[in-house]
């Protein structure tokens, strides 16, 4: 089977480096515009919640980061699997670049959840909330992945071993997700319902959707710039890179 030419190009570091350089500013620009619009809509246009007042507005950061935290792990695992199966170095580079971004968004989701928890539940941390527990475990998965990578000196080996961990992790993520949910429902403890009361109105929902799309673009932007850095690190001895540096120096 003959693969189209554009497919092969994604295995070439100089091509991907240049592509990331071209796309990065555009994607970043879209992210800035969308996040600015979503922030304006969320903080100014959306009405205050009848129950929680203005404190609900942290949802515009909290929900998008929680969503990115999960999506990033899936992308990480898919990239790692591609790298492992077809021995594509660039796919490994993508997986490596995602890990710290995903961990940061997970941390952001946890932190905003805790800040939100204070006025709503009266406590920063609720050990009985399944979603918080899940995010915490997801953060541990990211940190474990990064710790395993850091333990290997040989980059090639680190790539392949951590790819296996990434795939094992992503198989486990749904199991962990449902077990923490069932953990609470099996046990007739106090249940916390949030946002379950009145259905969310359009004025509140539209900025949230804009923020989610904006965060996705922001994630892509961060990923592209980290990927560029990762490529430079991996290819530091390559000729195309030296030529590029010489060119930019004039």
């Amino acid at each position, binding site marked *: 089977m003959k693969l189209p030419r554009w497919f092969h190009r994604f295995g070439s570091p100089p091509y991907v480096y240049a592509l990331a350089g071209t796309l990065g500013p555009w994607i970043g620009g879209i992210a800035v515009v969308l996040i600015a619009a979503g922030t304006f809509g969320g903080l100014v246009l959306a009405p205050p919640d009848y129950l929680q007042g203005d404190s609900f507005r942290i949802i515009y950061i909290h929900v998008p980061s929680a969503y990115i935290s999960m999506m990033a792990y899936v992308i990480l695992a898919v990239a790692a699997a591609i790298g492992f199966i077809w021995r594509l170095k660039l796919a490994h580079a993508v997986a490596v670049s995602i890990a710290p971004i995903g961990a940061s968004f997970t941390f952001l989701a946890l932190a905003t959840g805790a800040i939100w928890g204070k006025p709503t539940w009266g406590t920063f941390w609720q050990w009985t909330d399944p979603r918080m527990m899940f995010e915490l475990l997801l953060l541990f998965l990211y940190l474990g992945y990064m*710790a395993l990578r850091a333990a290997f000196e040989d980059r090639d*080996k680190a790539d392949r071993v951590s790819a296996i961990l990434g795939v*094992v992790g992503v198989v486990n993520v749904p*199991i962990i997700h449902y*077990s923490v949910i069932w953990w609470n429902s*099996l046990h007739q403890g106090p249940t916390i319902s949030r946002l379950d009361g009145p259905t969310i109105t359009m004025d509140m929902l539209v900025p949230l959707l804009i923020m989610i799309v904006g965060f996705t673009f922001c994630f892509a932007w961060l990923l592209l710039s980290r990927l560029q850095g990762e490529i430079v690190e991996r290819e530091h001895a390559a000729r195309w890179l030296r030529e590029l540096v010489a060119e930019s120096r004039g």
Partner: protein
Amino acid sequence: MDIFLTIMGRDLKLAYRRWSEFANPLLFFVIVASLFPLALSPGQALLQSIGTGVLWVAALLSSLLALEGLFRGDFEDGSMEQILLSPAPFGTVVIAKIAAHWIVSGIPLIVLVPVVALSFQLPGEALATLAAALLLATPTLSVLSAIGAALTVSLKSGGSIIGLLILPLCSPMLIFGTRATDMAANGEPVAAPLYLLAALAVFAISLGPLAVAAALRVGLE
């Protein structure tokens, strides 16, 4: 099947000759479980209510101690390389090694934990459930341990990292195991969490060895 039995028999024999390596984690479990009552304010009601969780977490931590030696010895003396080069299917070998590890580290826990549970005043009905839950949970634990041990086998000191890798993945087991024990203590039906534990075990045993074999291959490269 021959290969399975040969490898398992060999590993059991090795374990028998170095029995202290597998006795230490059990001792560790007993010590951790007995430190909790010392650390908490003395009161029977409190111990009874947290007993299940303490026992499960202590069992989980003690199993971390046992897993270092799972592949390390074979890796360092070169026998793992020989096994990989031999025509024996590597997946079978991995399953045999995991089974041997379960026999020497899982089964003693199934016996020991309910005994220690007696000292935490767990009601009699809960003890049988606790043993059943352990019987279903320890195979999963052995598979996850094997994944952790295989991922870190080529590192000089993998010990500190394995916990980071394995413990988050153990959380579903911990949840259903403690839930089953607690529900039995309250006289509720325990089928649901036990079925879930069984499902986890089947899932881990069928897919886990693939990951272990892949990780060992990378480690040997």
